């Protein structure tokens, strides 16, 4: 069974204080690892897809990296508007068209001004 574990559950940062969120995973053949941002009561917003170990992607203050066992979401000089829950999800190689996402429980990030 695919499993995704995110840590920490919650993280408080001061504006400008860089940090990293962790996502460790167990999957029977990784097709892709996805990062989403979710604001309260809203749908997850797509951020990144990573497909193979060593891959990195960046978007503004966010950078996602991937190894064979885990992924990190690095946040550089965060701003209060970066406050949200960050969700990690995996998609397994299973053939056909059934590429469901298995999510972790998320990291609630709060950035104080």
């Amino acid at each position, binding site marked *: 069974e695919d499993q995704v574990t995110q840590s920490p559950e919650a993280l408080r940062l001061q504006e400008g204080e860089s940090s990293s969120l962790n996502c460790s995973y167990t999957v029977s053949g990784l097709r892709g690892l*996805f990062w989403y941002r979710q604001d309260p009561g809203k*749908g*997850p917003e797509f951020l990144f897809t990573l497909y193979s170990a060593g891959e990195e992607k960046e978007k503004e203050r966010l950078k996602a990296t991937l190894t064979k066992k885990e992924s990190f979401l690095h946040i550089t000089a965060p701003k209060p508007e970066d406050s949200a829950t960050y969700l990690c999800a995996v*998609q397994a190689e299973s053939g056909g*068209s059934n590429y469901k996402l298995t999510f972790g429980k998320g990291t609630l990030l709060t950035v104080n001004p």
Partner: protein
Amino acid sequence: AAGVIQSPRHLIKEKRETATLKCYPIPRHDTVYWYQQGPGQDPQFLISFYEKMQSDKGSIPDRFSAQQFSDYHSELNMSSLELGDSALYFCASSLEAGQGSGEQYFGPGTRLTVT
């Protein structure tokens, strides 16, 4: 850019009633996924459709059914509602994974409250 549309955005039902949630995928996306997110929980996969055929099934109760229509929109039908069905229901769409990156784009969700 066009996004996934879900309706209604909010729905209040009583126990044992029936509810229908609708999802309109991003244009040209042929795959639709339904997820349920309880309070403080991560989204849980319910069911998916590719080209109007059910492609995968997760932890969806037998009281729920879904289908995808010829215009690719999808409906989730929920009967004999229970208090525990209260949750956010998200629809996501993507291109069939073999044709695209497999990225799923989520709608704003339908908040279902069962009283």
